[in-house]
């Protein structure tokens, strides 16, 4: 273009050139890339000294197995938080899904179909969350607080308040079996994260999630189907919680109405530890898995050290505060 206004008349159009970067900026850069990974590694190093057998191969596998349910929940929570929402119902969905699927299995339904029933129940709750949040415009916190309550109630009502025993070996396999020496839940967890990584990075749905979380008004004006996307996001969160419930039932050999208590808070903590912002638009699924592992390593290490569950809660809460504080201080 033969513009009379040459480009250099515009101030601020170029970002600061990378040349002459100072040491401090390099540190920041490394921190931005690695941040929480460094904390995780540091935590592992500490644990390997203070907790007996922490570095054993079997223990490491054990950690992954232990975190798998929370991890699956946290994957769904990540996309919800990316849109600027919250899903408090996932812990209760874990219970409902477990009870529903085990009861179906006991009633003679094919184990695979029974498991799908549990996942489906989770999807349904998520869908309802989505409709009330996106279409009716109610705050997600309130909507999912309500479903956290009624879904837990449904789990009690349908099971009569007692654990339902799981007898199907096929069903048990999903929580307790292993393939090539690695527990099944770890495969499931890995699959969920790989798919989620792909969806968030490479699909239109994933990019729209970031757009909505970053600026919902602009997204609407851009012609993005905001409501539909949100309904899908909550449905997926519910579906993954349902999957988590099935896995947990398979591990416990029973569907328990008390299962998954406070799992939603672990999932939220993991997502925030993983660098997502509660206001939406910022965060990565890779971060979430790191957050999950940080929580898992703490629990595991403390258990190996024979620290009581009660004290573990105190430590865990403290670590969450400290980690998020460190994260804030750097930025």
């Amino acid at each position, binding site marked *: 273009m033969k*513009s009379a*206004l040459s480009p250099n008349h515009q*101030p601020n159009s*170029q*970002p*600061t050139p990378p040349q002459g970067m100072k040491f401090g900026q390099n540190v920041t850069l490394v921190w931005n890339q690695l941040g929480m990974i460094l904390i995780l590694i540091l935590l592992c190093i500490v644990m390997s000294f203070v907790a007996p057998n922490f570095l054993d191969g079997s223990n490491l596998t054990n950690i992954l197995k232990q975190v798998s349910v929370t991890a699956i929940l946290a994957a769904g929570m990540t996309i919800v938080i990316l849109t600027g929402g919250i899903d408090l119902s996932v812990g209760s969905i874990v219970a409902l899904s477990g009870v529903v699927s085990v009861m179906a299995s006991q009633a003679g339904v094919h184990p695979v179909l029974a498991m799908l029933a549990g996942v489906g129940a989770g999807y349904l709750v998520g869908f309802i969350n989505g409709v009330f949040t996106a279409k009716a415009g109610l705050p997600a916190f309130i909507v999912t607080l309500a479903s956290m309550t009624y879904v837990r109630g449904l789990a009690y009502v349908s099971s009569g308040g007692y654990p339902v025993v799981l007898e199907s070996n096929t069903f048990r396999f999903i929580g307790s079996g292993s393939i090539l020496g690695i527990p099944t839940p770890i495969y499931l967890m890995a699959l969920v994260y790989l798919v989620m990584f792909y969806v968030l990075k490479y699909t239109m749905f994933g990019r729209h999630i970031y*757009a909505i979380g970053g600026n919902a008004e602009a997204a609407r*004006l851009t012609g*993005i189907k905001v409501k539909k996307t949100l309904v899908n996001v909550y449905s997926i969160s519910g579906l993954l919680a349902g999957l988590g419930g099935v896995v947990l039932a398979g591990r416990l050999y029973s569907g328990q109405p008390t299962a998954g208590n406070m799992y939603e808070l672990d999932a939220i903590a993991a997502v925030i530890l993983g660098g997502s912002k509660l206001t939406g638009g910022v965060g990565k699924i890779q971060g979430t898995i790191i957050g999950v592992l940080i929580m898992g390593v703490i629990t595991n290490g403390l258990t190996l050290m024979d620290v009581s569950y009660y004290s573990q809660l105190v430590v865990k809460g403290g670590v969450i505060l400290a980690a998020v504080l460190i994260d804030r201080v750097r930025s």
Partner: protein
Amino acid sequence: MVTFEKVRPVPVSLQPVLSMKGISKTFTGTTVLKNVNIDLYPGEVHALMGENGAGKSTLMKILSGVYAPDQEGGTIRYKGEHVQWKDPLLARKAGIGVIHQELNLSPNLSISENILMGTKYPRNKLGGVRWDEVHRMAEEVLVSMGSDLQPEQLVSTLSVAQQQMVEIARALSYKAEVLIMDEPTASLTDKEIDGLFSIINDLRKHGVAIVYISHRMEEIFKIADRYTVLRDGEWIRSGPIQETNPEHLVSLMVGRDLKDLFKRKGSLYKREDDHPALEVKGLSDSTFVEDLSFSIYPGEIVGFAGLVGAGRTELVRSLFGVSSMTKGEVWVQGEKVDIRSPIDAIKYGVALVPESRKDQGLFLDMSVKENILLAEMKAFKKIMKLNWKEFNRSADNYIRDLRIKTASPAQPISGLSGGNQQKAVIARWLSTNPKVLLLDEPTRGVDIGAKSEIHKIISELADAGLAVLMISSELPEVLGVSDRIFVMHEGRITGHLQREEASQEKIMHYATGGN
């Protein structure tokens, strides 16, 4: 229009109340201010001028204690003493008041509370707040500036202009001796501006030094006594306002003559050849837009002028399906359409570049390329994923065609200047292949250089056959870019001007309700 008798201070005989010398400020390696000087005298209105990014707001933030200057980065003398405020509260206590462009009020509290916020409320013996006393104190301040606002009223019920009064009252309540006003008239009507100016005149008489930041030349020459121009973080010049004129000021700000402010040569298209791209018949909406009828032909830029609040934004929002119309018909390319959502609008080939870039346009955390193509992502959809190769190529094309200056297409858009961000938003709408482009204040908050570049782009788009509706509150922009001009007043079209006959005076005549 009211004219004001200026009370000219005689600065030479007085000591400056505040004087900043050799101020420099660097942010992580980028120098934002270099050796800037400014003196403020009691009772003067001092216009601080410069393009966006020239350093005005940084300088004012240093003045009000938000930032500290660099080490060895200059000194501030206030009332004869050397000062260095550690935080804005201390500056405020010392008498530095700031009225931000975005008002900082709590909408659900009363006017009194907003005025006295941050001070200790009078208490009764039990330690409870004595509200009668609070309201009385607030009223005192309001009366002193000739305002008849009720102190008990909630701020949320006030108009923008009234809210500004509350902000000013707050500054007065702590006896500000230096008052910084950042674009105070940006969202005021002419009448409200007159009201603001008489308050400023009053303050001037009482010896308050006012820093007045505005891009509107007309106002500056009406109200200011002296000026200071910054450019690229450097002090360029200060002087009495009588010794300069708009052209001179602009040339100081941009460092070049502004002969090259964009001037469109007129539409290339003959109207008789064609059907209108957009035809609106008797449109009314639920607010106050009433019975609007007009058409826009391909290749034509139609300007919509009027005062803020005349209903222009409401008009384009209902055309785009954001708010609903209650009566009337809209025809796009000879087809009657029923647009109920932005998705419908895009389908029919209508695009809207909204008024507020940050709130309604940008995804600040996302890359430039995604910001450009977000509306058209489905065009790049393969079975399960997006075709990122095509996506990147297409984004590159827009970046090149619209001359968007970015380090890389993958850079977050938050790092671009306002002008380049705006071009990216325009590019997004071009990607939807529209027939009708609605532009709501396309160059708001964009510096002068980028402005005329955007004007040129708009003009090129029209020449390529697009029908453009452009809302603008800046008369030179409307006059420079439009082929025809509609003027709105209180929800109705009050005037229709061809480019040849249009003038600022005629537009203002219609915009203020004349016929």
